[in-house]
């Protein structure tokens, strides 16, 4: 019974969302969004169900249900829900809702995909929908939208190219270990394909030097869209990386590890160093996101189970941190508060939001006993544990550098000001509260989450 719920429920939900999105395209009220929210909650429930039942099967040749994907299903459902809550004040709810549903279904597809082809199409779907979301909302949004679109297109093209290249070795395009054609030993073609995959996914995941577009796009888009980009799209790309490099190219992890190391180091430094000189908080957070991608990549570079656990933990942690943070930034942006100087006296103006923001920032900086600290701790431990001590040291140094700009904002918030108090909308408060709670609670008691993650990782890799 449960099996059937899971087996049919998932495709049904996705279908429902997409059709619902189209159906209510023209509506002007928030109803469709609420409906979407409902669907997301159902998806979350199904994911939990599937996880606990320990299923592992393939559906329609393109969907795979196992511990890993079901856990991610639930997780992304929550993340998407949070973004949705932030979008409460969207001007064109119907349109937004449709695009959102498209993107959401794309996300689910990626998470559940069993085939490289479906993966590819899902990513394309997400990119397209997101680009349109960015476009939404006025003339100022054209530039970032265009940038996003062009970059995404380039990325997808490279991805297609890469898929084509591994054709001789994997006709089924299944996300399963490559069948080694023993005749073509360690072939350079496979390596080339691997590189191209890295490039393609790195663009979306925000790894150096493929992430230069990010700051402009993040800053230019509306707040909730940025939250989506940073909290969901980026993570989806990472999941894709996991699938491609730890399943498809499973035998090549040792070879690819130095590559990831290099990229991770460059990404961390780039993100942190440029963030230091930013005055606009939204842009600063964008670069901070970039550096966080670097940290996550450390776990991937390490490659052990512990490393993957750590990366996943940090992925989850960062999603909550970034959605919460961008939500607050969005709210303040709508009041014209953008630069670090504008943030002056925030503690005074709204104590709760100020403190929440500070806590989220501290979590990103890696201060215990918050979730971000646990994630970084796991990442650095896994690095040292596998002998990649230099990587860990660089990671710690970068954490240290990041304190500077997070600290700058917090210190500014601590300053005294004459301005009056501020009040956010319900949506922002709710999202902030949820993210804050997750960061605090999981930070204090991470073991449950860690064991869930270990279990799910083991089921696939």
């Amino acid at each position, binding site marked *: 019974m449960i099996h059937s719920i899971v087996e049919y429920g998932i495709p049904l939900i996705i279908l429902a969302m997409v059709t619902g999105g189209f159906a209510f395209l023209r509506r002007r009220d928030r109803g469709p969004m609420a409906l979407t929210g409902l669907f997301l909650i159902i998806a979350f429930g199904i994911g939990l169900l599937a996880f606990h039942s320990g299923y592992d099967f393939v559906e329609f040749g393109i969907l795979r249900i196992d511990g890993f994907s079901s856990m991610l299903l639930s997780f992304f459902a929550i993340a998407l829900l949070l973004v949705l809550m932030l979008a409460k004040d969207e001007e064109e709810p119907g349109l937004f809702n449709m695009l959102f549903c498209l993107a959401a279904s794309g996300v689910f597809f990626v998470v559940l995909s069993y085939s490289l082809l479906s993966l590819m199409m899902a990513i394309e779907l997400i990119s397209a929908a997101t680009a349109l979301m960015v476009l939404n909302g006025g003339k100022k949004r054209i530039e970032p939208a265009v940038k996003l679109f062009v970059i995404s297109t380039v990325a997808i093209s490279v991805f297609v190219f890469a898929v084509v290249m591994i054709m001789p070795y994997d006709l089924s395009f299944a996300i399963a270990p490559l069948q080694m054609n023993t005749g073509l030993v360690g072939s350079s073609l496979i390596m080339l394909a691997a590189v191209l995959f890295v490039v393609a996914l790195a663009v979306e995941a925000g790894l150096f030097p493929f992430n230069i577009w990010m700051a402009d796009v993040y800053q230019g888009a509306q707040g909730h869209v940025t939250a989506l980009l940073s909290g969901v799209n980026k993570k989806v790309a990472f999941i894709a990386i996991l699938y491609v490099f730890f399943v498809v190219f499973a035998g090549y992890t040792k070879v690819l590890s130095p590559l990831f190391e290099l990229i991770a180091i460059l990404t961390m430094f780039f993100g942190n160093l440029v963030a230091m000189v930013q005055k606009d908080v939204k842009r600063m957070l964008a670069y901070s996101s970039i550096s966080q991608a670097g940290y996550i990549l450390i776990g991937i570079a390490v490659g052990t189970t*512990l490393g993957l*656990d750590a990366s996943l933990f940090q992925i989850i942690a960062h999603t909550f941190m970034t959605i919460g943070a961008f939500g607050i930034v969005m709210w303040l942006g709508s009041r014209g508060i953008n630069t670090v100087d504008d943030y002056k006296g925030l*503690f005074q103006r709204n104590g709760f939001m100020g403190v929440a923001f500070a806590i989220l920032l*501290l979590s990103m900086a890696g*201060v*215990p*006993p918050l979730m971000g*600290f*646990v994630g970084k*701790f*796991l990442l*650095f*431990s896994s690095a*040292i*544990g596998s002998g990649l*001590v230099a990587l*860990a*040291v660089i990671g*710690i*140094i970068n*954490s*240290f550098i990041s*304190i*500077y700009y997070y*600290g*700058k904002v*917090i*210190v500014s918030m*601590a*300053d005294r000001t004459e301005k009056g108090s501020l009040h956010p909308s319900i949506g922002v408060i709710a999202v902030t509260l949820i993210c804050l709670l997750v960061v605090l609670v999981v930070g204090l*008691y*991470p*073991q449950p989450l*860690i*064991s869930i993650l*270990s279990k799910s990782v083991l089921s696939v890799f």
Partner: protein
Amino acid sequence: MIFFPAIILVLFLGILSVLLLDKRFSRPAATLFSAIALAIIIIMFVYYLSGRTANYSETVQYISAFGISLQFFANGFSVPLSLLAGIVGLAAIIGGNPLQEKGKVANSLVLLFEATAIGLFASGNLFLFFIFWDIGVIAAFFMISYLGDGNHLNSAKIYLLYSLLASALLLFGILMIYFYTPIRSFSISIIEANAQMIPLGVQEVIFVSLLIAFMIKMPVFPFHSWMQSAYSDASTQGSMLIAGLLSKFGAYGILLLFLMLPVARTYAPYILIIAIASAFYAALNGIRKDDLKRMAAFTSMAESAVILTGIAAFSIFGLDGAVYGMLAFGLGIALLFLSIGSIEFMFGSKHMSILNGVVKEAASSAYSFLFGVFAATGVPITAAFIADLLIFIGADKSFGVLGLIPLFSIIIVGAYLYYAINKSFFDTESSVEIVRYETGHWNPSYALLIFSILALGIVPSLILGFR
């Protein structure tokens, strides 16, 4: 057995009540909870003095992959140091914030700090140590940036940068210890037993990394540049806690370092040289300061150098002396900062050049400061005398006459402190006027601190009876 978790729980309840209750109840609530915590500490003290163990180990895991769980050890270090935290915390709450500016935040930060300190001193594994360390860093940061005055934002930034460098080094060192000890564990007792198996080169890397981290915190020359602005611009409570407790984090860390890593002991003579340099450097800089708080800050740095000498000596005398020193100097410096704070409050200035004849209007503050100076220079019947005695007996045993050199920095420290007193406090020929007539509740705090310093100076077996 559940003493430590109980203490920390009480303090957290205190924080909650302070945050939730109305502003008027901040200080009474904070005082109540802090007093309860102190009472529990004293009970634990008595319990432990009679020889029963009070270790606490939680079975629920934090991160089971690393075997990290909630562990608190009660031993000859953690119990006396918890006493220090309890007394300084209570004194800070009662007297440190006369007008209760930003009362809720201030009181909750003090309670948080107190809890963090006790947690750190009692932690049974390095992971917990690190967590409490970082929380302490952030709490102090807010005390400087949000509650401080003067150039507080800048000082807070500098402080944060140095402290987080220390944290980074600390994390690195801890992780290295974990992964390179054959029996992988964060538990301090297990590490102590097994660390000699770490390869020598790695041990040295860990040693340097952790040493620098702790040297930043104490602070010890040459990593001390954050100190004078931070100590000076923090609020009164902030200064009391940072000087009295936070610097002891570093001292305790070095103590653990010496206990855990065998290589540390081979470098002890170099540590002594660093301590000598730091002590005199601090004393010489203290002479030049006009701001009383900066002067006290350098005094604290000189005292930290003395504690470092004791740890480097490493014998029973040295270590007992070091712990005694942490207690004695911690209490003494808290007293100094409290009296300076009260004077700044009443007279509107903390600069020697402006203050004159304070004793005329503020006798109790003046005499408390005098007593603080006695405590700093090691006058017998204050706890500092016992500390100096034990530390230098140990130093002489381990290093010969060279070990006694840091002792002579006291001459310089005494010289400038007495200069300050006689210039600003006891010379009423042209005395300054009181600016603010509201009184704070300093006297109970003074009494508490003075009583503790005297008690520990007259009955040393209270602390030393552990061994």
